[in-house]
C-alpha cells in the first residue's frame, strides 16, 4: 500500500517542531549555529539535518507575506537519485518512498549533484545516534529523509507529521492526499490566486505533495523539475572497499520498484556497468585476451593495494607526529 505526505504551506506556522522531532527520532546530533540575521536555522540541509523550514519574506503590491516552506526529500516516484546511483544504494520501498542502503553507498555524490531539489547530502556513516557532531569522515555515505521507515513498519506515521501542531503535514493514501490538497487549493484561490498543488505530476508524482500559496519558484522549488541528462558514471573512482563489497553478492541487484526503462533512455544510458566487467576481468577468461586481462587485473589491484598501503602509512605517520606535537604543546 502506497503512502504519502501532504505539506500544506498555508497551514505551516514555522514552529519547526518537525525539525526537532526529525532529529529526535533519528537521533541526529544538533549542529552549532549562529544567528545570521534570520529566524531560519540550521542554514542548510546536511547529513545532520534532513528536514528544514525555509523562511521567505515577500512584499507584493504593498501586502506583506511571510512564507514557510518545508525542505526535505520529496520521495519522487521517478527519482533522479535512484536513477543516477551507480551502486544501487538508492531504491524504492513498496510504500512508495525512496530508500538508501548506506552499506551499498559509494559516496560518489551523484545524488547530491543531480537531485533537482538538491536534497541528498553526504556525511560520515555513523552519525545517527551520536550525541555530538563528528567532523572527519572515515567513510562517507549519502543521507536523506528516511520517511521514518521504522515508525511506518510499527504502524506509526513519520515523526514530522505526528508532531505538527497545526496539522500542516498530513500522512495517508496518496490519492486521498491529492483530493485533500486540491480542496485546499480551491479554497485558497479566493485569497491566494496563485495557490497550487505541487507534486501531482512532478518527477512521476512526488510522495510528498505541497499545497503552495504562490508559484513554486517563490517558495524556492523548481518550476518544472526534469530527470535531465547525466554523464556516465566513472567506474575508476570506485573505492577499494566497494570492490570488496561486491564479493558479498548484494550489489548487482536492480533497485526494487525502479523502472528499467528509465535506464535505457536514448543518450542518457546508465553508466557502463561498473560491476560486471570488473568481475569478469578478475575471474573469467575472455575470448579475445586469454588470461592476460585477469593477470593485469590482479596486478592492477595489487598495485592499487600497494599504493594505498604506502599512502596509509604516510598518513598514519603524519597523524602520529601531529599527535606528538599536540602532546608537546599541551
Amino acid at each position, binding site marked *: 500500500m502506497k503512502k504519502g505526505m501532504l505539506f500544506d504551506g498555508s497551514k505551516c506556522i514555522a514552529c519547526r517542531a518537525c525539525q526537532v522531532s526529525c532529529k529526535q527520532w533519528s537521533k541526529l546530533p544538533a549542529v*552549532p549555529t549562529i*544567528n545570521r540575521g534570520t*529566524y531560519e536555522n540550521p542554514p542548510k540541509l546536511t547529513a545532520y539535518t534532513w528536514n528544514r523550514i525555509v523562511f521567505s519574506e515577500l512584499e507584493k503590491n504593498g501586502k506583506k507575506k511571510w512564507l514557510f516552506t518545508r525542505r526535505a526529500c520529496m520521495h519522487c516516484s521517478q527519482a533522479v537519485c535512484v536513477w543516477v546511483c551507480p551502486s544501487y544504494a538508492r531504491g524504492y520501498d513498496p510504500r512508495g518512498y525512496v530508500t538508501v542502503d548506506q552499506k551499498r553507498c559509494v559516496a560518489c555524490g551523484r545524488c547530491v549533484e543531480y537531485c533537482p531539489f538538491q536534497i541528498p547530502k553526504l556525511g560520515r556513516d555513523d552519525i545517527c545516534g551520536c550525541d555530538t557532531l563528528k567532523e572527519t569522515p572515515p567513510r562517507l555515505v549519502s543521507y536523506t529523509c528516511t520517511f521514518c521507515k521504522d515508525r511506518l513498519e510499527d504502524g506509526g506515521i513519520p515523526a514530522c507529521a505526528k508532531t505538527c501542531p497545526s496539522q500542516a503535514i498530513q500522512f495517508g493514501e496518496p490519492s486521498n492526499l491529492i483530493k485533500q490538497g486540491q480542496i485546499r487549493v480551491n479554497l485558497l484561490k479566493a485569497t491566494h490566486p496563485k495557490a497550487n498543488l505541487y507534486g501531482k505530476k512532478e518527477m512521476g508524482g512526488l510522495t510528498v505533495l505541497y499545497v503552495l500559496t504562490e508559484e513554486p519558484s517563490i517558495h524556492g522549488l523548481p518550476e518544472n523539475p526534469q530527470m535531465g541528462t547525466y554523464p556516465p558514471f566513472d567506474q575508476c573512482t570506485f573505492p577499494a572497499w566497494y570492490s570488496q563489497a561486491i564479493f558479498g553478492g548484494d550489489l548487482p541487484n536492480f533497485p526494487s520498484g525502479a523502472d528499467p526503462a528509465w535506464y535505457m533512455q536514448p543518450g542518457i544510458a546508465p553508466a557502463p556497468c561498473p560491476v560486471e566487467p570488473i568481475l569478469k576481468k578478475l575471474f573469467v577468461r575472455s575470448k579475445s585476451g586469454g588470461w592476460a586481462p585477469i593477470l593485469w587485473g590482479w596486478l592492477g589491484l595489487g598495485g592499487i593495494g600497494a599504493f594505498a598501503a604506502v599512502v596509509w602509512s604516510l598518513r598514519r605517520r603524519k597523524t602520529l607526529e601531529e599527535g606528538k606535537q599536540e602532546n608537546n604543546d599541551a
Partner: protein
Amino acid sequence: MTNHWNDIANADVILIMGSNPAENHPISFRWITRAIEKGAKLVCVDPRFTKSAAKAHIYAPLRSGTDIAFLGGMIKHILENNLIQKEYVVEYTNASFLVDENFKFADGLFSGYDAKKRSYDRSTWKYQLDANGIPKMDKTLQSPHCAYQLLKKHYSRYNLDLVSQITGTPKDDLVKVYKAYAETGKPDKAGTILYAMGWTQHTVGTQNIRTMSIIQLLLGNMGMAGGGVNAMRGESNVQGSTDYGLLFHILTGYNPTPRASDKTLNDYNGKYTPKTKDPKSFNWWKNRPKYMISFLKAMYGNAATKENDFGYGWLPKLDDTQNASWLMIFDQMAKGKFKGFFAWGQNPACSGANANKVRMAMETLDWMVNVNLFDNETGSFWKGPGKDPSKIKTEVFMLPCAASFEKEGSLSNSGRWMQWRYKAVSPPGKAQPDLEIMHELFLKVRKLYKEKGGTFPEPILNLSWNYGAKNPDGTIKHIDAHYVAKEINGYTSKDIEVEDPKTKVKTVMVKTGQQLPSFAFLQDDGSTTCGNWLYCGSYTEAGNMAARRGKEDPTGLMLYPQWAWCWPVNRRIIYNRASVNWEGKPWDPKRPVLSWDGTKWVGDIPDGPPPPGAIYPFIMLPEGHARLFGLGMAEGPFPEHYEPLECPIEKNLMSSQKFNPTARLFGEAGMGVGADKYLSCDPRFPFVCTTYRVTEHWQTGVMTRWTPWLLELQPQMFIEISKELAQERGIKSGEEVMVKSARGEIWAIAVVTSNLKPFKIAGQTIHQVAIPYHFGWVTPPDGGDSANLLTPTIGDANTMIPESKAFMVNVGKKGGIG
C-alpha cells in the same frame, strides 16, 4: 480562558491581539486552522508582522502600548453603527443601570482623583439604588446616566483620526479590523479574542483586557461557543498557580489574603462577603464563609475549632495597604529587608524587570536556595558579569528537582482543565519532585519548632499534614500526590442531609468521611474540609476525576465532559447561561452550549440553578449583570488611553494625563533604591521596544538553552529592526549591535526585516524594535544576556505586572551609541 483551546475551532472571527499564538502557543493553531477551514476570519493586530500575522486574513500594525486607543475606536464603531447584540446588552449587562449623578470624566480623569496619593476615591463610581437597595435601570438605554450612554459618550472621543495618530495604524486597516470583528454582534456569530503578555505587561494591562471584555459584551460573545475572553497562559500550569493562590493577594480559590485590620474571621467574612437584595441575583460570593472555613479546616485540621475562629488568627496577614508583588519583593530585597530567598522553579536574574536591580538585590541576601533542573543566572548570580565573588556574602544552595515527566500530579491548563499526569521516568541523580522537597523541608522546620520553640509556633505546629499512608508511629511513609488532591477536593466529618423541596423528606447525600461531590455541600460550621473550593468535585468517591480520559462529545462542540475535569463543577464554558435568552433558547442555534428542553438544561453544566429566567447569568457578581461600567479597577470605570511610562511622544493626544495616573512609580518617596530609572521622550532613547518569546525557547530559557536541538534553531540573542532603521543606522542583517535603555545595555544580532515598519505617530516617524527575552549569560557562552536588563520597574496599577512590552531604547553599531 473562559472557553477552551479547542473551542477556538467554533469561532467565526478570531482576533489575535497582545499575543502571537503561532509562535508561542503552537497547539492553539490546530484549532485556529480548523476554524479557518470552516470559513472563519483570522485578524491579527501586532507591532510586528508575526508568524500569526502571516496566517491572518487581516493584519494591522500598531505601536506597542496603544491597544486601548485601538479598541476604544472599535467600541465607538460598534456603538455608532448600532452593531451591538441589543437583547444581550440590555438584559445581561449593566448597560441599563443608572450611575451616580456625581460620576464625572474630564480631561483623562474620573471623579475622585487624589493626585498626591495617585489614587481614586471611588465613592461616585456606583449605581443609583431604589428604595429596596436594588440598582435602578433604564431598559430603553436613553437616560444620560445609564452605563450605556456614559460608555457611548466616553468612546465618542476615539475617532479614526486620533486613533490612527496614536497607534500608527493606517485608517483603512482600523476600519477593516473593526468591521470584521463587529460582524460577530449578530446573535448567531461568535468572535473570540486570544491575548497573552502583549496585553498584560503594560501599565494599563488590566484595562487592555477590560476594553476587550466590554467589546465582547456589546457583541454578545461571552458564554458562547467560539466566544469568550481567552488568556493564553505562558506556562502549562500557570492557571493552576493562580487557582491555588500563589499570588500574594489571594488564598486558594481567589479568596482574598486577610489584611492586618481583618482581626477576626467575622471581620473577614463581613468585609469580603458581598450582599444583594435582588432576588434574581445569585451572588455567588455569598458562600465565601463556607469556602473560607472549609479552607481553614484543610490548613489546621482538628486544631481548627469554632472557639479559636478555626485558626484564622494563624493565617499570615498583609498590612492594610501592603503590596507584596514581584517588583516590591525585589525592591525590598535591594533594601536589605530579606535574609534568605527560595528561588523555586524560577530565574529572577533573567525574568525580573530591570534585571540589573534584581541581580544587585540578591547580593544583600545571607542565603539563597535555588530549586531548579539546571544551574541558572539566579543561582550563579555571584559570578555573573560585573560581579566580584570575593565581595558577595550570599551562600547559595542548589536543589536539583524533578521535571514534569519525572513525577506524578495534576496540572490545570489555560482552559481550566485539571489533568492528571503520570510519572514516565525517574528523575536523574539526586533530583527530587517538588512535593518531596517541600515535605522534607516542612518536617525539618516543624521538628526545630518542636525542639527549640520559636516565636508564634502555632501555625507550624498546628498545620495539618497528612499527605501519605502512615507508619504505626504516625509518621508518613511516603508523601503521595493523591492525598494532597483528595484534601483539595474535600470531605465531610458529619453526614450531610438534603431536604427535597417538594416532599420535605431529608436524605443523607454525603456520609461522614466521604469525599464531597461538589462545593454545593460545603458548610460554614467546620464540618467540611476543602483545600480549594473551586476544585471541589475533582476527586470524589467515584475517584480521581482529573484522570478521566473519556472521549464522548455529546454537544459536538468539543466540550468532552468526560475528559479530565474542569473547574467549576466540570463547566466547560463559563458564563454559559449568557448563551441563551431568558426563555433558555440559544442565541446561536447552530452551536448551542446550553438549551432548555422544557424540563431540563441540555448541553454544558449551566451556571446556577434552573429554570431559565430564574437568575441573572453573571452569577459571580452581586448585581448578576456583566459590567460595561466597571466598579473595581484602579484607573476608573471605563478604560482610557494613557501613554506607556516611557514613550516617544511628548503629549497624550487623548488628554493632558500623559501616563496612567494610578500606576505606582518607584521614584516616589519610600520606593526604589536608585536603580529605577526612566527616560521618556529622551533623544538618547528614540525607539519603542517590546519584548517577546520565540517557539524554540521557554521563559528565561533555563530548560531550553540546555537543549542542543532547540539551541540549534535559535542560538543567540537578537533584535528585530526594520529595513528603514537599519539603513538609517548603517546596520547590516546578521551584524552584532548594541541595544541600550536607561537601565542597561546588551548586545544582540540584528535581524533586519520587513516584519517591522516605521510608524507615523502624531506626524513623526517612530521606529519600533523588538527583542526576545530567553537568553542569559550562563549558557550558551556566545548566546548573549537577558532582555530584562533593559525593561523598566513600573507596574500595572491593579496587578503590578511590569511594563516590559513598551519602553524606550537606542540601537546602534558596537561603539556607535553613547
